[in-house]
């Protein structure tokens, strides 16, 4: 079984914007490795001549009229779940 290194786990956590404790790093090293080992089954499947399927509805280029539909939801309603606000603005921390 090829085990993911600590560095690989930390890189994934960085890409996914997650902070992991040392225990979590160790746990995910073990668990992700065994899951990835399981999905390695697919290496031996012959798929020559086949294309990947990304969606199964068969629909293509679904479009609608470019018009505003009023669902009766106010700006205030839409903003009520914002954690930190200033007036109608979403307030975020400094960037640098």
């Amino acid at each position, binding site marked *: 079984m090829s085990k993911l290194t600590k560095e690989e786990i930390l890189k994934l956590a960085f890409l996914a914007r997650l902070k992991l404790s040392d225990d979590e790093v160790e746990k995910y090293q073990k668990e992700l490795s065994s899951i990835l080992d399981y999905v390695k089954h697919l290496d031996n*499947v012959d798929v020559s001549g086949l294309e990947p399927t990304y969606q199964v509805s068969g629909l293509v280029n679904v479009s609608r009229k470019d018009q505003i539909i009023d669902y009766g939801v106010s700006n205030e309603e839409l903003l009520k779940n914002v954690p930190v606000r200033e007036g109608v603005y979403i307030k975020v921390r400094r960037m640098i």
Partner: protein
Amino acid sequence: MVHWKSIKQEASDVANGTTSALANVNKSLKLIQDNEEFGAIISVIKDRSIERAKFIDAQIAKGQKVGRLAGVPFIAKDNFLTFGSETTAASNMLKGFNAPYQSTAIEKLEAEGAICVAKANLDAFAHGGSTENSDFFVTKNPHDKTRVAGGSSGGSAAAVTLGLAPFALGSDTGGSIREPASFCGVVGLKPTYGLVSRSGVVAMASSTDVIGPITTNVADAALVLDVMSGKDLLDSTTIDNDPKGYELNGVKSNISGMRIGVIKEYMGEGLDPEVKKVITKSIEIFKKAGAVIVDVSLPSLPTALAVYYIVVPAEVSSNLSRYDGQRFGHNDLNAKTLEESYVNSRSQGFGSEAKRRIMIGTHVLSSGYYDAYYKKAQTVRTKLINEFNNAFKGVDALIGPVTPEVAFKIGANSDDPLKMYLIDIMTVAANLVGVPAISVPAGLAGDMPVGLQIMAPQQKDRDLLILASEFEGLIK
């Protein structure tokens, strides 16, 4: 635990004054309160449901026409956006979230007079098969409190089994309606991909997510599907519904001469002997009714779970990237910088299963691994679809078990995520292929319920429901 008549009967009793919408809502709210110990419900929609019930009763008093589901209470899985309560997806991330709009499915049910009285427990963000991944509490199986109710729609299945309401809504990404329905002994329908709008339902894996009903009988599931299905401007993956509709109204199919395929790969190694007995008995029932039973082999089925656990975490990691703590959801107020705010909000708001799936998804989509994992999985998916299409050229329906075992003990699989994932082995294929599938109660293994899984070709939901209803009649 039968507290309700058929949905149709309940609605007609309200419309003709035998009972009232308010009496139904109060009855449901009381039952929810009396059954708290099972952990099926996260929140109750009290004020709004009473208000809606009074409105419907007033319409009836004035002699106005009411909808097909007038005054019928129901329970929605807590990943459906609803008014009158929080929508949490059983996650700390969305604790305290009040939806500014409702999901299309809820709107359609409400337009016919149904009343959403409560929100059901689930594995957080629908990640799991037991509700043990709920960030709040575990749902207990009504047949045995030491066992799981299944998942991720475990709260919905337990609620219907306990009779808290005539029906509940679930979502099914890899078996999350059928597996808990099988574990609890109720009917769970996963419709064709795209048949029910997913607008306003917390997204898990967009290429396999579907919405469906959990009910005590097949005719009820058909009626709820009839109301919820069809194209929606707010979900561009939706398809047209069957012009004949889905309501059964006593329609019979002629099982005699029908060709039913038994999925060979599901009947072999790993299937619990007691479960196998129940399924074998179900096959005999079809045979006695005149069906031609054929053994069908879908050679790629053993790879379906591996495909699923690449494709789904990939889509999960993409869908969960929206939770950055800025616009809604958990936010770490102590963070000093924006980057720290993203990282801390996500690390605190997501539970360990969500993190695990985000990490797997990030890995299989990352450069250097994309072709080997994600693209390969999606290509094997094509192979699986081709095998299903071929199989359906020779049979009208495919049957098999829903799960290899009955509901397991709470905690039995918690220490090994891979073991937990293996529970989905017989349900994920229908999602990857997009075909409709249903779990119908078929008997008991020991004291625990076993469901029979029936699958039909895409958009043959009506035929599937008719056949399932016939089976339900024959097994009784």
